[in-house]
């Protein structure tokens, strides 16, 4: 196994094009356990952290750009980002311990392909886009389209994500992410729920996005919940509809972390709670970006 740390995107893509058995990594927090368990045995380890764009966090008037390999600690400690996307910041902050936080990244969390990745539902509700580099330049893909199944992505073997783009959070909007784990830390989500809402001037819900993690092979949107919310307020009846829709859209498995019945039930509970937090945040963001 050979280690290499390219200093530019071009260098990295050309390495990947010429090495059939290469593994890109940022924090290696998923890669190392997989190597140890014998689930993969690449010949080349390509460390993406020495490429400037991959670890940068920046914003302009239109969007935030978050390097795919930027440690999630940098994201959660960025007050401007965390103020604007508290749900995504909190979701990123749930990926492991403080030790892990200094290594884990949005790119790694996404490309590991786990249905339970905490940051993914939070990125999906915020409409995040992945900027993907390959031998023929870059392309942009909705984050929701990147993962195609457990451990599988739509990326080619010689592609990797450079950065994520997030449109600036509009006024009267807020996001939230909640997960259920048996402990308080150091667990994989049994159920995760992200929500984002934008309120109209009159306080009614103008837009809503709800997405769930760990309840299907990939992160799933909950269109019926979104429809139930839009145009109204989060009264008990609507919240029940949100919960029911969330439970209904689940296609989970029974495994060591939870059962089908549990995941369905709790998906509804968390979706409802996440929507309420998102609304509260939207109410507080009554104006400027």
């Amino acid at each position, binding site marked *: *196994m*050979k*280690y290499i*740390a390219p200093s530019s995107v071009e260098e990295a893509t050309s390495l990947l094009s010429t090495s059939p058995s290469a593994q890109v990594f940022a*924090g*290696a*927090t998923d890669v*190392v*356990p997989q*190597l*140890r368990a014998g689930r993969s045995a690449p010949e080349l*380890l390509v*460390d993406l*952290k020495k490429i400037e764009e991959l670890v940068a966090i920046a914003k302009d008037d239109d969007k935030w750009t978050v390097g795919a390999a930027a*440690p999630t*600690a940098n994201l959660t400690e960025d007050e401007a980002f965390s103020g604007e996307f508290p749900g995504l910041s909190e979701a990123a902050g749930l990926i*492991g*311990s*403080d*030790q*892990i936080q*200094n*290594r884990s990244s949005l790119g790694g969390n996404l490309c590991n392909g786990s249905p339970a990745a905490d940051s993914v539902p939070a990125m999906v509700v915020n409409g995040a886009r992945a900027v993907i580099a390959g031998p023929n330049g870059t392309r942009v893909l909705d984050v929701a389209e990147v993962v195609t199944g457990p451990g599988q992505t739509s990326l080619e073997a010689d592609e990797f994500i450079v950065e994520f783009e997030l449109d600036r959070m509009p006024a009267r909007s807020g996001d939230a992410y909640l997960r259920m784990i048996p402990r*308080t*830390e*150091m667990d994989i989500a049994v159920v995760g729920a992200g929500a984002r809402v934008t309120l109209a001037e009159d306080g009614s819900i103008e837009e809503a996005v709800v997405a769930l993690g760990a309840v299907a092979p990939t992160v799933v949107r909950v269109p019926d919940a979104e429809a139930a919310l839009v145009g109204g307020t989060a009264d008990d009846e609507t919240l029940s509809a949100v919960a029911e829709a969330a439970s209904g859209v689940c296609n989970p498995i029974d495994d060591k972390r939870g059962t089908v019945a549990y995941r369905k039930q709790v998906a509804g509970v968390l979706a409802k709670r996440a929507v309420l937090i998102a609304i509260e945040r939207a109410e507080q963001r009554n104006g400027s970006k």
Partner: protein
Amino acid sequence: MARTHITAVVNGDETEFLAEDGTSLLNALRDEVGLTGAKEGCGTGDCGACSVMIDEKVTTSCLVFAPEVQGATILTVEGLADSGELHPLQQCFLEGAALQCGICTPGFLIAAKALLDKNPDPTETEIRYALAGNLCRCTGYDKIVRAVQEAAREMRGQ
């Protein structure tokens, strides 16, 4: 297999060592540099016993490939005391009986230092979450949390 020559500042000293590329920083520190203070409890980043600071950021050295630290500055538990004078955390762990078997202690000390570097006056809850990546099976964490609280007070000069 050819090994890579790595130069890093370890506990204040410019240090050179050889390691295979796939070797963890933890094994390189233990086997090549001879610093066995960081321990392997799991090898998968779940227990924190191998915690070290790399460029002032705490991380689990079992998840770091040795060549990644080329040119970096590393602090292990062996470098915590200053010319033989214990760090306040070390002193408070001793005085507060915050260790039983002691296998997790190096990792806790490093993680607690990382916390206090960022947040000199943490609440009990902040301490508990900051140390959640460090498993201790002996103490039930009570005396560890108290020792960190006490060290924080001392370091603030209170």
